[in-house]
């Protein structure tokens, strides 16, 4: 059995035919909101070009954990973190890593679609221009097109790039947000319940899209939807009360969970 997870320094290998390179290694990550400890020592390995799903009941710390990966928690003044998240040999939680640089490497898609109230084009082009990825003009146009294509939105919006991003439907807005994240050319995309505000058809579209995107990017997704995790994720981590109870490849996790609590949650006995 390969279920008990990642002790520090010893990444677990899984019962997979292909082994994947590590994108992020999280070791003993603790986080406090003021006095409340929300994460109690998380160890987790995130594999490159895979989808890792984080599941668990509300308030279990999965979203908090996700926001640690691009240091969005830095925006909350009362938050304090300990431990390490290693990426490219560096601890991204340390002062030596600039959180702005980190967020360029680790993009994010939020629960509620939040396109900028600007044109569709501008939504995608804003960040690359800011990071000097491409000069304005033809190359920028191309980047906008490839990003929108990668997000599966190009055919729907190519004739209305000038209209506001907020005028699109919910599912289209979320794909626009994905295009916006892709345009910065990150290596990891974090998704915080990306389909919870969408209808089933839009959800299916986004899920298909995630499947395509993992060829190029590493995806970490928080979801409340067990079926969604089972459908799309290569690995799944079950969070409970600020701890990772179980972490395994999705097939194993959903067929033969080793922990009673995981099984109870997956089968809907609580959560």
């Amino acid at each position, binding site marked *: 059995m390969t279920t008990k997870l990642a002790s520090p320094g010893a990444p677990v290998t899984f019962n997979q035919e292909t082994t994947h390179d590590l994108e992020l290694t999280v070791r003993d990550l603790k986080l406090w909101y003021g006095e409340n400890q929300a994460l109690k020592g998380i160890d987790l390995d995130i594999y490159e070009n895979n989808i890792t799903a984080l599941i668990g009941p509300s308030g279990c710390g999965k979203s908090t954990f996700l926001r640690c990966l691009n240091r969005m928690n830095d*925006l909350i003044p009362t938050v304090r973190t300990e431990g390490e998240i290693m990426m490219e040999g560096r601890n991204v939680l340390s002062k030596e890593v600039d959180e702005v640089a980190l*967020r*360029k490497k680790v993009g*994010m898609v939020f629960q509620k679609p*939040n396109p900028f*109230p600007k044109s569709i084009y501008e939504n995608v082009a804003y960040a690359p221009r*800011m990071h000097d990825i491409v000069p304005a003009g033809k190359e920028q146009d191309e980047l906008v097109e490839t990003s929108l294509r990668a997000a599966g939105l190009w055919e729907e919006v190519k004739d209305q790039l000038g209209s506001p991003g907020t005028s699109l439907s919910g599912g289209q807005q979320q794909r626009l947000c994905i295009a*916006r*994240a892709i345009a910065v050319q990150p290596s990891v995309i974090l998704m915080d319940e990306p389909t919870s505000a969408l209808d089933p058809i839009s959800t299916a579209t986004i899920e298909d899209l995630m499947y395509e995107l993992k060829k190029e990017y590493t995806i970490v997704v928080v979801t409340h939807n067990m079926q969604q995790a089972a459908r799309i994720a290569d690995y799944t981590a079950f969070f409970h009360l600020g701890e990772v109870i179980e972490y395994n490849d999705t097939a194993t996790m959903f067929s033969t969970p080793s922990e009673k609590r995981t099984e109870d949650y997956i089968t809907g006995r609580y959560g």
Partner: protein
Amino acid sequence: MSQSLDDISRQLKKRHRKSARMKWLSFGALLLAGVFLVLFLADMLIKGLPAFQQAYIQVEVNYSERASELPLAAVEADVRELVSRGYLRLIPNRMEANPDLLGTQRMEWVLADDEVDQYLQGADSSLSAKHKAVVDRLTEAGRAELQFNTGFFTNGDSKLPEMAGLASAAVGSVMLLIVTLAFAFPVGVMTAVYLEEFAPDNRFTRFIDVNINNLAAIPSILFGLLGLAIFINFFGAPRSSALAGGLTLGLMTLPIIIITARAALSSVPDSIRHAAFGVGATRWQTVRDHVLPLSMPGILTGSIIGMAQALGETAPLIIIGMIAFIPDAPTSFTQAATVLPAQIYTWASMPESAYVERTAAGIIVLLSVLITLNATAVYLRKKFEHRW
């Protein structure tokens, strides 16, 4: 045991009566306020509207050698008292500018004395019976009439009521507002940006916060004292200048702009900030590219309202000496200037009835400008309002 429906109804009757009474009382309060407003406006209009018309009379002007020395000689003795002395005084200048006039005689429509104006408007006039008879004769002959008073908008203040106009005060007001806006807008908006977007939430910022709110409630005359002490006595800005006045009003407007700008910034939802941070924007980029543009309509609205308040402000300006007699519009920010409300205040203290008219007319003009400014603010708010 439950009460019967009849019992409940009996009790209710009393409560309903009280409810109806309160409804009529509160409606009465509204009515009272409305009556006062109507009375005020009607009084202003009745008193002020005549000032928008000015009496002119047609007289024969004799551009003789003698008139260039003694302007009074240019018109005949019987109408001499009826012509504005301000007009007569300028005759030598006109002859100098246009030498062809010398030795000619022509019928001209000239500005009448303020008492003629009052007589023609049907108000009390101190004209003697003899002069009234002359005016009546002129009127019958079609040689005395009321025309639109363009001078009220093109002249500066004057010791002759028929010549007095708002122009210099209006220019002064505009210059003052330019200084106020140039000072208060950037300082106010950046303060709001710091407090709302950058500052940590600690004791110090909360202390600042409370004090800014208090500042907005300080009597405006204290800002006058502050302006006098700082801008004039310490920095040596010229007394009564648009510079000193504008900076003083800027101090007064600052808290209003800070408060409205903060409200506008905080109404931008965090999801926009998160979106910007999420693609790797710095705090300033987030503010400059997303939060500020979205809150700009609100900030502009607040600034316009602040400007409108500054435009109507008199007390602090009296303290720094902006109540002087200014006949000519200032041409630089350091020259002595006066402003519309101060001009109204000056006229209000004059005895001639023509000045009473001008006081009311000045108020009408000032009110119209203020209403226009506020309407613009409302329009901007409605037009660019974001619904999240």
